[in-house]
């Protein structure tokens, strides 16, 4: 009877192995699918984010450039510049520096332009000062030059003087 038990056990084992044979393909396919889905999902998420963040940044960047370039074409006074700023950024206002004769517009820390004017004008009735005669628009921040725009450097010749 011992032989009978062995033969039954072996037959069961044969069917077991046949079942394994069919299952193993499924296992490998699942493992591969899991790996593929994980890798591609990560790439999809990461790259989509980069694409979107840069596309969003373009919106603010192009509007700041547009103020600088349109300003060069149409702006004469600081009031003109303020109107132009409001056209592209209704919620953000530029700030004036009467002493330096500049108007600085900061849409964000990465998007800053500084307009330089020739003279200060004063309204005789109200006493309000404004700037007139646009000379240039400094876009060095937009160009990625790290230093914030400063006033024109003077005395470069003096650097060589030792005493």
């Amino acid at each position, binding site marked *: 009877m011992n032989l009978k038990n062995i033969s039954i056990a072996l037959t069961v084992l044969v069917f077991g192995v046949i079942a394994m044979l069919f299952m*193993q393909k499924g296992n490998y396919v699942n493992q591969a699918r899991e790996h593929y889905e994980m890798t591609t999902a990560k790439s999809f998420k990461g790259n989509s984010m980069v694409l979107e963040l840069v*596309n969003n940044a373009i919106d603010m960047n192009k509007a700041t450039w547009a103020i600088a370039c349109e300003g060069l074409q149409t702006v004469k006074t600081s009031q003109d510049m303020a109107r132009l700023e409001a056209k592209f950024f209704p919620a953000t206002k530029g700030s004036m520096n009467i002493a330096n004769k500049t108007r600085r517009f900061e849409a964000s820390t990465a998007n800053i332009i500084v307009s330089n004017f020739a003279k200060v004008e004063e309204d005789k009735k109200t006493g309000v000062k404004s700037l007139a005669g646009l000379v240039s628009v400094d*876009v060095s921040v937009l160009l990625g030059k790290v230093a914030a725009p400063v006033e024109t450097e003077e005395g470069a010749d003096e650097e060589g003087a030792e005493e």
Partner: protein
Amino acid sequence: MDKKKMKILVVVDIVILVALIIILMTLKGGYEEQAKRTANEQETSYLEKNTQVLVEQWRSIDQYSMAWKLVHSVLSGVKTEPAFNTTLAAIEADKDARFKQISHLYTGAGINENVQNGIFQKAGLAEGSILIKGDKNSKEVACGKDCVIKFEFAKGKLKNLDYSALVQFNLSKSLKIEKPAEYHFE
């Protein structure tokens, strides 16, 4: 069942078992190899396609940045055709400044340096000149994907400058990252 038949059954079972185990081992290697290979192939192909979109975006931003710089320089300086040519050549040649300007936009967007360098290594800078039409009186400049700006000169002086395409520049419709397709074992 008599003893003799039992014996035959045991022997047959053992033979089948051995054969099955051999088949199992052989197929195992084959399935494993095929699963790894197909997954790798499909991953690589997707990642390449996917990264290509960022490469295109980077090169577009290079052209876009040069175009703005050109418009600003032309409007700031002497508005003549020779000055345009000189300015354009200088902007295109200054590769460090080009990288800096792109990188500034990406940094402002919140993309860190490692990611930027990764894209830059694959994309480099936009190839060729952004000047796509260079007649004496009429110039057309590429300013990124699907973006062209126009400079018109009369007697060597700037008569008209149309950079509305730059003001409306938008990549969100032209560049898309597709979702990964289903994995196929075959």
